[in-house]
């Protein structure tokens, strides 16, 4: 899934881009309103994050413009001045959500996931995902909700997590090498080093495994990669 981020502060922009990338989204960055509109037309993202105070066209103007072309694409406002959000959240501009500074990573992630859930429900979303829930061992995975359940316990998943689990589910029993996993979940050809992947798997295990030290769902295949037994 492709996300367009428009934010004039460089650090915030790069920080958000990194968070989103970790979540498993493809990001397109714009530094001002004009760029944002141009990139929106060019790249047709699946949803948009707009900073309100930007030089040139403000987030509101960009939102209006985008809405004119695509009334359904989800738009989230990033704002430092909270009082303006009230207006916005009215049907007036048709934004879906907002996030106010200062925000933490967790907040961003929670909002993004919420938006993603809505996106996944839409037919024209590009995600190459199967949305029907499936099981991996005793874990029930619900891709459309970005969640997994074990018993009554609810586990939040990122998009990438879902992609990885989806891959494991489809190649149940098979050992997957890192390249395959990488290209499926990261979407790139070149795996710089295995560290990123291994770290992610490690963190995923922490979330979904009963005992992360002794993983039952995702098992390591030395020299090759990983495998899910089912």
């Amino acid at each position, binding site marked *: 899934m492709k996300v367009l981020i428009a934010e004039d*502060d460089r*650090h*915030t922009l790069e*920080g*958000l881009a*990194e*968070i989103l990338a*970790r979540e498993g989204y493809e990001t397109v960055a714009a530094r001002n309103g004009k760029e944002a509109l141009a990139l929106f037309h060019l790249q047709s993202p699946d949803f948009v994050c707009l900073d309100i105070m930007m030089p040139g066209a403000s987030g509101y103007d960009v939102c209006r413009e985008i809405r004119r072309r695509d009334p359904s694409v989800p738009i989230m406002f990033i704002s*430092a*001045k*909270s*009082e303006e*959000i*009230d207006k916005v*959240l009215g049907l007036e501009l048709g934004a879906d959500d907002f996030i*106010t*500074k*200062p*925000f*933490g*990573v*967790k907040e*961003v992630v929670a909002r993004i996931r919420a938006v993603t859930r809505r996106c996944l429900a839409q037919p024209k979303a590009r995600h190459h995902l199967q949305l029907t829930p499936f099981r991996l061992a005793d874990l029930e995975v619900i891709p459309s909700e970005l969640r997994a359940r074990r018993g009554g316990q609810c586990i939040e998943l990122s998009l990438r997590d879902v992609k990885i689990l989806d891959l494991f589910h489809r190649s149940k029993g098979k050992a997957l090498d890192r390249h395959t996993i990488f290209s499926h979940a990261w979407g790139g050809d070149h795996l710089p080093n295995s560290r990123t992947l291994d*770290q992610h798997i*490690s*963190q995923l295990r922490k979330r979904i495994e009963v005992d992360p030290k002794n993983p039952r769902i995702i098992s390591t295949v030395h020299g090759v990669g990983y495998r899910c037994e089912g």
Partner: protein
Amino acid sequence: MKRPLAMALALVALLPLAGLGWMGARLAASEQQRFQQRVQALLETRLNDTKGRIQEFLQAHERQFQRQIQDLGALDAPTLRDLARNDALIRQVFVLDPQGRVLQPPLDGPLTAAETDFLSRARDILAGKDLLYQGMREGASSDSQARDDSGWFTWYGGRGLNIIYWQRNASGQTIGLEVDRVRLLAEVIGILPDTSGEAADASQGRIRLQDERGTTLYQWGPYEPEEGQAPAAALALPQPFSSWKIACLVPASALQAGPSLRIQLAAGLVAAGCALIALVIYLAREYSREMREAGQRLSFVNQVSHELKTPLTNIRMYAELLEDSLQDEGEEQRRKLGVIVSESRRLSRLIENVLAFSKDRQKRLTLRRRQACADDVIRSAIEQFRPGMEAKGIEIQFDGEAALPFEFDPDSLEQILGNLFSNVEKYAGAGKLLRVDSRQQDGWTTIRVSDRGPGIPRGQTEKVFSPFHRLSDRLTEGVAGTGIGLTIARSLARLHGGDLTLLPAEQGASFELRLPIPRTEDSAAP
């Protein structure tokens, strides 16, 4: 500026002005009155001069009449007729016996036409001798000593005023001279002033000699009065003209108190008015400057807070990103990173507080309600404070029974909890306990935050909620704090329609936060 204040200022300016104006008008009026009286007195003096002249004239004639009567000698018809014929002023001479009967002109002899005319005119007067005698006694002469044996007598009949000068002789006979009114008037005109044609000062006015009907007989003076103008002063004339008068008319401008007084008053009023208006303007400007500056201060505060938010966001965000990346790395690095993160969060909270406080001052504090789960927020807040609490050895207990989502502002709840927890951390650390309970019941979500610290002294249970209020320095010595935390927390609670109150407790402090659960169509009762 607010309307009531503007009106008050306007009143401050206008009321004294009105008062001054009224007083000034009264002063001018009374000044005018006095001036008019002075002018009138002046005019009356002038009229008195004229009256004096006329009096002298009449007295001279009286003396002449007396001489003429004395010189008569025999009181027979030819002598008397001669006198009447030759004297320009005397029309007719008559003689009455002591009983008032007419001796001359001789009623039994041939009468001239003039004598017949006179007798018919004077018939009533001569017949009613009581009237005649009474009138004669009343008609004082122009001489200051009212004499009993001579004088003027006037009556109206025929063509107007009839004038007689009479004198009683030693034998008790009354000798009367009928004086030609027209001739007498012409002679009076002769001795009265004329009017120079040169452009004279109109304020000199005009003096009119007026008869009994107010008709002008003669007038002099450079001023031409308006139609129907009333005289400024008038004097009655002495006998035989007592029904006539001399009146003085002056232009209205002469009766006006000098412009100098009015100008002074007007100038004074204008000056006072200017001073008042200047004062009001100064006050208004000072006030709006105050307001503007206060606004500027507030908006500066806002601005600063907003400016701080972006770098703060970045610090926190990057610290957290780093935290995630370093998940498997060294404890020490993770710990240090944890400090950065928690401190940046604390900074965030402080900024939020200040911002909320300044907005609250401006009455611009608002909520952004949405469907959320109170317990989630409590948990998240507890997690944020856990490192700090653990470092101080404060145990955290949480009993959450408010898992049902409802509509409220989670950020506000987080802020309230943050303030309460931070207070516990700052002031109640000795109690080693932070307990949080949450309930949902009867349409309310109730969250209780309790500690076992020193608690709040009896007299300060309300004061703690006041801004900038800090408990006695003994307690809080050495501890930082802005004094606005509880103020904000309560404002936010009340904005929701709920409240934040201090519960009585034997030990420690126990705050209760109540948030209403708004009724919607599809909300299920808890």
